[in-house]
């Protein structure tokens, strides 16, 4: 026993190294495979630091932010019911809202990693839950993966494991938006059936199948269409409509009917 202690003491540098690495890798594995939530325990500190920093840094982008908000206001005004000219139709109904939007400020974000996340300054106290979609006025941004009381972590579209169901606007064919980890302005639309023709500049929108994003949110435009030979499905290179390097304000989307839809789907699964 004493010899063992002496041995460990003699090689303590090596043993400590192994011990620390085991600890680090257990964290990595937990983080990778169970998507463990640690924001609850660390969110308060990191959130506060990022928030303080952001309160200072946001002064430098005020002009840009203002312009964006004005643009968006104008667009929203255009979609108000008063903005439409009514003809003599007798029946007028307004759809009940299905999606609700919660505004939030981005307090930290990355684009240079293979797995990019954003942190926003709204959390469970503001009605945010996991798996909600996050967008800007320009298009989709990501999905909420972790929440604490006042902050949420959002898995960006720029995440090599993130897949978003998308649709080609002109012919309504479905595909999957993926990111290959190369360039933050471009991603791939995969699983396009080979008979579908695409040309540069075609618009890609969210499909609405996932209940996370409403149908028709902008994703990007086609940059290059690559018809691989002998493949069942084709890929297209897409320019994202959102500049992920310039995110200041985002909207978190709540689908009011989501629970109902998911319940139905689960019943369907149970029947099979």
């Amino acid at each position, binding site marked *: 026993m004493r010899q063992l202690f002496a041995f460990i003491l003699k090689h*303590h*540098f090596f043993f*400590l*190294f192994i011990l*620390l*690495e085991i*600890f*680090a*890798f*257990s*964290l*990595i*594995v*937990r*983080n*990778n495979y169970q998507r*463990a939530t*640690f*924001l609850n325990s*660390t969110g308060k*500190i*990191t959130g506060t*630091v*990022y928030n303080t*920093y952001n309160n200072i840094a946001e002064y430098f982008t005020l002009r840009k932010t203002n312009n964006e908000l004005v643009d968006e206001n104008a667009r929203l005004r255009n979609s108000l019911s008063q903005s439409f000219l009514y003809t003599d139709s007798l029946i007028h109904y307004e759809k009940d809202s299905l999606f609700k939007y919660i505004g939030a400020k981005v307090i*930290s*974000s*990355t*684009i*240079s*990693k*293979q*797995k990019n*996340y954003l*942190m926003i300054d709204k959390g469970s106290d503001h009605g945010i839950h996991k798996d909600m979609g996050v967008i800007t006025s320009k298009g989709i941004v990501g999905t909420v993966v972790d929440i604490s009381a006042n902050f949420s*972590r959002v898995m960006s579209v720029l995440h*090599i494991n993130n897949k978003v169901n998308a649709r080609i606007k002109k012919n309504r064919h479905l595909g999957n938006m993926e990111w290959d*980890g*190369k*360039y*933050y*302005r471009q991603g791939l639309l995969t699983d396009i059936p080979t008979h579908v023709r695409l040309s540069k500049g075609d618009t890609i929108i969210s499909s609405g199948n996932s209940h996370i994003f409403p149908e028709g949110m902008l994703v990007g435009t086609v940059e290059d269409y690559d018809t691989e030979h002998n493949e069942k499905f084709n890929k297209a290179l897409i320019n994202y409509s959102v500049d992920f*390097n310039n995110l200041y304000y985002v909207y978190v989307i709540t689908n009011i009917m989501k629970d109902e839809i998911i319940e139905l789907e689960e019943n369907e699964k149970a029947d099979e």
Partner: protein
Amino acid sequence: MNNIYIKNIIRFVVLLFLQVLILDNINFWGHINPYLYVYFILLLPFEIPGWFLLLSSFALGFGIDIFAGTLGMHTASSVLMAFFRPIVIKSISSSKEYEAGMQPSISDLGFRWFFTYTVILVFIHHFALFYIEVFRFSDFFSTLGRVIYSVIFTVILVIITQYLFLKRTKK
């Protein structure tokens, strides 16, 4: 003696916040990100006991991880880099002799020594970091490319930082 402790503690805190608040938002060509925080591990004194070297590197990596939300990634690569530090120091020779009280720096051991020392250790760190991040070997060469570019940028920043502080001490 006290001075060295205080210096290193300040360096630890400054580099941690510099990394998470500023450097993590800097991207060259979209996806090349410098990791200057390893400067702390590079500049720890020679006489530091091994366990302290490992533990302080661990703490730094863990701090970065908490902010970046990448638990374990920076911790594992920082500890690995700290583990290799004594081996690298032993294996590269300098034109100048080691003396007591010397710091791992350009002013004490010369540019050539410091450059070799930095490149090897930063490479070990970035190599571990980037492969842990993707967690697969399928894109081996594209990851290796990103490792090399990031090593170049980190090394440039380390050298610039060295010269910035070199001048200040001479004044």
